[in-house]
């Protein structure tokens, strides 16, 4: 079956900043893929490129088989019915001058779906699906809380029934308890409506909850792609291991007895990434070849997980930076 999303060798440079430097990734129909990375990793840029909110510098993006990489905007617009995006910041993701019902109905109006009455009904349905009462349709964004605004964003993105949703840090700006609600909502919507989802975040706990597969990004490139269980149980790439190790666990006994992997230095600037493996200056086990050659993202191990590391053998064995948590 055609995957919902196919990204092949995507490159996006902003002048000298190499935000995304050759990413290949697939999201199957109905699958949730978590894209994890820290600041400077390029994950948000990738999300925007995939939805053609940015022009690609190079590479290909196919959504449900349609190559949208270089399509003219006019030809692209009707295809936008099939994919959409929600953003992180509830304060700026809704037009303050539009009522909620107008916002949610915008994709329907733009794609001329249904009659006026049908659209109104559809808006009510979608609002209900995201857990908002129909009266909320008459309100304006400034009357809503952050959590409610994110629900409206979801309603907007899903009202035209897309088969792919890109979620760019949808819960990062919310309080813990609200995050829970929104994550639950996304999970429920995804299983009810069956859309594919590229879930971009730095929050590993959220990814572990929602995603079936996880891709880890560092400085513009993918370093590891694996199914959720494998990634969290036995991460292969040193950066993934460090990332998992660094995320504090809300359990004092465990947290304080863990041996944490401390990375030296900080994330370098994407303007002049290090030679060879981009992670090598901070990698506790880097060798000479790591500084010289760029490692390929290649399948390793029995299940064919993808890792980009010279020190990981074809059978999947590789460096273990710390004992299992």
């Amino acid at each position, binding site marked *: 079956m055609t995957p919902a999303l196919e990204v092949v060798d995507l490159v996006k440079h902003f002048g000298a900043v190499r935000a995304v430097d050759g990413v290949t990734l697939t999201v199957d129909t109905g699958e949730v893929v978590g894209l994890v990375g*820290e*600041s400077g990793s390029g994950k948000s840029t990738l999300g925007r490129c995939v939805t053609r909110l940015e022009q690609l510098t190079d590479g290909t993006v196919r959504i449900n088989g349609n190559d949208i990489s270089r399509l003219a905007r006019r030809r692209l617009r009707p295809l936008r019915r099939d994919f959409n995006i929600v953003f992180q910041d509830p304060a700026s993701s809704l037009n303050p001058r539009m009522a909620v019902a107008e916002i949610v109905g915008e994709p329907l109006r733009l794609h001329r779906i249904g009659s006026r009455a049908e659209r109104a009904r559809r808006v009510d349905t979608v609002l209900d699906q995201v857990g908002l009462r129909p009266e909320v349709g008459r309100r304006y964004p400034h009357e809503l*809380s952050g*959590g409610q605004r994110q629900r409206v964003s979801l309603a907007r993105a899903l009202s035209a029934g897309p088969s792919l949703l890109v979620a760019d840090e949808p819960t990062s700006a919310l*309080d*813990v*308890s*609200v*995050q*829970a*609600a929104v*994550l*639950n909502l996304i*999970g*429920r919507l995804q299983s009810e409506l069956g859309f594919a989802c590229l879930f971009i975040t*730095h929050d*590993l*706990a*959220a990814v*572990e*909850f929602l995603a079936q597969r996880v891709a880890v990004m560092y400085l513009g490139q993918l370093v590891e792609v694996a199914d959720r269980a494998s990634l*969290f149980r036995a991460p292969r790439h040193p950066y993934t291991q*460090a*990332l998992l190790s*660094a*995320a*504090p*666990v*809300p*359990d*004092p*006994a*465990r*947290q*304080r007895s863990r041996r*944490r992997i*401390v*990375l030296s230095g*900080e*994330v370098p600037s994407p303007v002049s990434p290090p030679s060879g493996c981009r992670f090598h200056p901070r990698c506790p086990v880097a060798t000479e070849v790591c500084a010289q050659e760029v490692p390929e993202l290649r399948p390793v191990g029995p299940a064919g997980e993808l890792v980009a590391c010279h020190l990981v053998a074809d059978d999947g064995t590789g460096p273990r930076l710390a004992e299992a948590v």
Partner: protein
Amino acid sequence: MSELESPQGEREMSEPGTAWATARPPTVGGPLLEVEDLSVRFRTEDGAVLAVDEVSFTVADREVLALVGESGCGKSVTAMALTRLLPSNALITGSVRLGERSLLELPEAGLRDVRGRDVAYVFQEPMTSLNPVLTVGKQLGEVLRRHQALRGKTADRRATELLELVGIPLPAQRLKEYPHQLSGGMRQRVMIAMAVACQPRLLVADEPTTALDVTVQAGILDVLRDLRTEIGTAVLLITHDLGVVADLADRVVVMYAGRTIEEAGTEALFARHSHPYTRGLLEAVPDPERRAGGIREIPGRVPTLRSSPDECTFADRCGRADSLCRARRPELLLGPAGHPVRCVHPLPLPEVSR
């Protein structure tokens, strides 16, 4: 020049260039910081808003106390109220004692001495807290000059030591750099260095790692942890991140809608919490083992209060609430787990199975 009482009387300041570590002996007799019935009201154009509602807690010498809660619970306002760092429309009542001194009664001049010297702050956004047009060295130097009257080479040496203390590599070089040349984690370390330049008794850290990447966060937490042994500073940690609390805090005070609702040692709070809101917070973190049921949500929203209601402020969102909960304001009493909790129906102790 104001001094904190200590058994020896005068506070000893270690000479620049000498070892940091045991510059100050711990105080005996009484906590370092004692907050009693602290309330903060704001006069806004829409009326009065009650942000902090008779909050009481103590911080012992060299202790790390975490104030935990979500947005709107009043934890940040509490922290700022300690040294009256609030806008002019804020009305602060209650008592804040640092050692022997009552901070809320100090005149502005005395308070300025306290800020930075006895109580120092570290905030969430290092980029907006650091002056972008001054080098790191200049900014550190300014702090050292103001509070310790150090200048020139002596100040430089001390500044270098400070940067070393917070784990910044090549500190001498860093002194000449500008904030924008440093990464987020580095800037936060510089902020901490500036905050502890005068060896404050208390460091108030308001969401110090929230804006940082996870891999950088760990380093900052280590710095904060080491400050206790290196300089003898206590830390009041304001955060919503329970992972950070689990990592760093000795004791935890949970706040909700301006009130303290539970106080316990860290391990006790996580393992034997008593307040339903605390449980809600702990369960809001996605747990892979409970995936099937979804993440537990707390329905409803944090209320914005105008005055202190004569009932439990969490009652509207609590599954266990009944008429007793709305009858009057719950007191902070010892709960079934042996630590204070403000709840009429606290949670029972968990079963011993596990």
